[in-house]
Each structure stands twice: as C-alpha cells, then as structure tokens.
C-alpha cells in the first residue's frame, strides 16, 4: 500500500488495530486525540515528516508492534528502552520501529506502572530484543516473562541496590557513600555557581 505521508499510514494503522479512528486533528497540532474505543490511553504525536510516536495500552502493544512489522513494513527494531516518569508513576516503554521501504520511524510507547511492571516479551519477533529486555530488567526492574536469560545480570555485577536507572536512585549519593571521593572536590549547582561567578552583583 502506498502512503504519501506518515499521517495516512498512522490512520490506516489505527483502522487496522481497531483502537479507534483518527480524529479531526492534523499534523501541525502535535497531539491529535484519537476517538474510539481506548481514546484515553491512545494518542499519537507526529514529531517530523518521518518520525511519529504513538501511545497504546500495554495489553495492545504487542499486537500493534506485530501489525506494524508484518503489515506496514516496519521490520527493523531500532531500539527498545524505557523512561521513568516518576511524578506520574509510570515507566514509558519506547519501541522504535523503522521501515526500510519508506524510511519512516514509529515509536510505539507504552505506559507501565512503576511497581511490579511487567510487559509482554517480543524476543520471538527480533533476536536482539532479548538483550534490550535483559537491560531493562536490570536497569529499571521491568519484567518480561519468557524472555531468555532475563534474570541473568547483563551489565551490573553483584548489584543489590534499587535498579540504577530509576529516578529515585541518587547516583551521586550512592557514589559518595560507596566509593572514596578524593577530598578537595567540590561540586556546585551549575546555575547558581556560574551566576555568582559571572554576575556577582546580581
């Protein structure tokens, strides 16, 4: 199927997944609400002419990714990562998919609760996904049931603290507590420090 712009592809994608129909919003307004079944949890953001982010509920994520891979030609899993939005209490998984035929990217984003977060594994769709999932399990504590070697430590060794990439983990405090900071090194909040260096009068 031929799509001129990434918006058309997205609307076709929403049609196929049955998650709802694209509303009246257009590309210039970045957030276009999706009317329909799961309107609350679903929205899309078109970042540029070849990059868009869509957000779907966790239980539909794997569906959508398989649809994109099999029916829309997004055959390349660029990366899979998570970002911690602690104030809203969610991890946001980002599956970045790339289409070699159209050279478009679609980032499928999924919100997971921060505690006891679990996501379906996609290690059977892409081989390298298992590695990404091991890293997420280790760095964020997100579980991917069935992913191979998911419980083996990937990067850290003998780590017994909270997963380091969570935002509640303070790396500076941990470093000062664990390693031996050489005395004489003082650190400052850059804004305040440079302000009093550069504009002492203010």
């Amino acid at each position, binding site marked *: 199927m031929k799509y001129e712009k990434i918006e058309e592809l997205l609307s076709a994608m929403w049609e196929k997944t049955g998650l709802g129909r694209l509303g009246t919003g257009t590309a210039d307004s970045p957030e276009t609400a999706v009317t329909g079944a799961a309107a609350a949890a679903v929205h899309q953001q078109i970042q540029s002419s070849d990059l868009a982010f869509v957000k779907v509920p966790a239980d539909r994520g794997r569906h959508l990714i398989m649809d994109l891979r099999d029916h829309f030609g997004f055959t390349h899993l660029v990366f899979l990562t998570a970002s911690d939005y602690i104030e809203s209490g969610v991890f946001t998984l980002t599956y970045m998919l790339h289409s070699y035929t159209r050279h478009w990217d679609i980032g499928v984003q999924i919100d997971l609760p921060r505690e006891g977060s679990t996501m379906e594994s996609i290690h059977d769709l892409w081989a390298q996904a298992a590695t990404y999932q091991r890293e997420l399990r280790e760095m964020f504590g997100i579980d991917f049931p069935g992913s191979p070697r998911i419980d083996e430590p990937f990067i*850290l060794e*003998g780590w017994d603290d909270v997963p380091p990439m969570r935002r509640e983990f303070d790396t500076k405090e941990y*470093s000062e507590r*664990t390693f031996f*900071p050489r005395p004489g*090194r003082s650190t400052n909040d850059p804004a305040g420090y440079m302000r009093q260096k550069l504009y002492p009068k203010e």
Partner: protein
Amino acid sequence: MSEHETNRQLEQDSVREVMEAMMTYPGKADAGDTVLFCDARPKVEKPYRGIIEKFLNWARANSLWVLGFGTGCGAIELRPLMTSRYDASRFGVAGRPTPRQASVFIIGGYASVKTLKRIIRSYEQMQNPKFVIGLGSCTINGGMYWDSYNTINRLDHYIPVDVYVTGCMPRPEAILAGFVKLQELIRAGKAEKANEYAENFDWYKANQKKIIKNWDMPDYSW
C-alpha cells in the same frame, strides 16, 4: 598518609571477622560467598641490598612488560604508543598477554566495579615486583564520572599506584613521560608498591570488599 593510617585502623577488626568467617568455607564457595583465592595473603619480599639491587633495578627499569588489558578508554592511546609515532619499545616497553609474565599494569582510565574485580585478580596474579600506572583523571578522582554509580573514584584505595598520568585522555607523550618517571622510581628503588600492598593487605581488601559484593570467579573447567 594520616587518613590512610586511620582508615586502616578502622577496617582492621571488621576485616579479621570477615576473613575468619570465610576460613570456614571449604574450597570454592557458592555464588554470593567469597572465594578463598582472592584472599591469599601475599608476602613481603625484601629487596637485596647495595649494588646487586641497583643492578637488578636497572634491568627491571629497562624491561617493562605491560599487561595487555585495556581496562578503559585509555587503551586506545596504547596502540599509537606502540607504533612508529611514539615507539615505546625504544624504552624497553613491550606488551605481554598474560599477567604472570607482565610487570607493569596500566589502568587505562575509569574502572567500573565489574572491571575492578578483574583488575584486582590480574594484579594479584602478577609477580613481585610489579608496577601500576594509573591513566587519566578517572583513576585519580573519578574524573568525568565522579558521580557515577558504577565507576570507582580513587584507584589507590584498591591497588597501589606508582605513577599517575593525568589527562582525559592522556596523550601518548604523557604516557611515555609516565614510563620514564616509573623508570626513575624503579632505579631509585622507590617502586616497592607490591610490598606495600602486602603490608596493607587488610586495608586494601576491606576497600575492595566494600564495593565488590561477591568474589566468585567464572567457573573454569580446570
């Protein structure tokens, strides 16, 4: 050196307890426990006196065999060091792939906790006298990664360091200067850090155990 002393005093007792507790494990322990290998206490090897030791030190200073272990990003400048631009082999510097035969250990930049375990094991497999060159500001005070949760801040709390080469990253000329400085130290008989490691073994081990949670090494089939 005062904090050195105090730290050592502080750590003495806890370390003894730990080691006595470990002595009860027979042979190789399970994962999570400490393996006895890494606590084999080295002996202080007294150097000879007078002209003999001077002669031997001269030989040691002029044949520095570097362990081929690129622990950090400093390793990328060790290759130009051995090529025609800065030909370190003129100074008797040669690479050696196995710690048993190497006499100089270059810690190239930051050392993550996972690498530090291998660094310590390789260092303990090297034979006395052995020398350590700390490369880059990361080994001195953590450098760019001073607040990272995975890189150490001060290398000299875990293994004794003879020469520090500052910079991020240090130029090959700086590394050559570090080698020359090390040669001066060796000729002057001041590079006895291996014996210092043996003397302050408990202090070093305590610092190492503080961050390296389990010592079980990968299981070989030998």
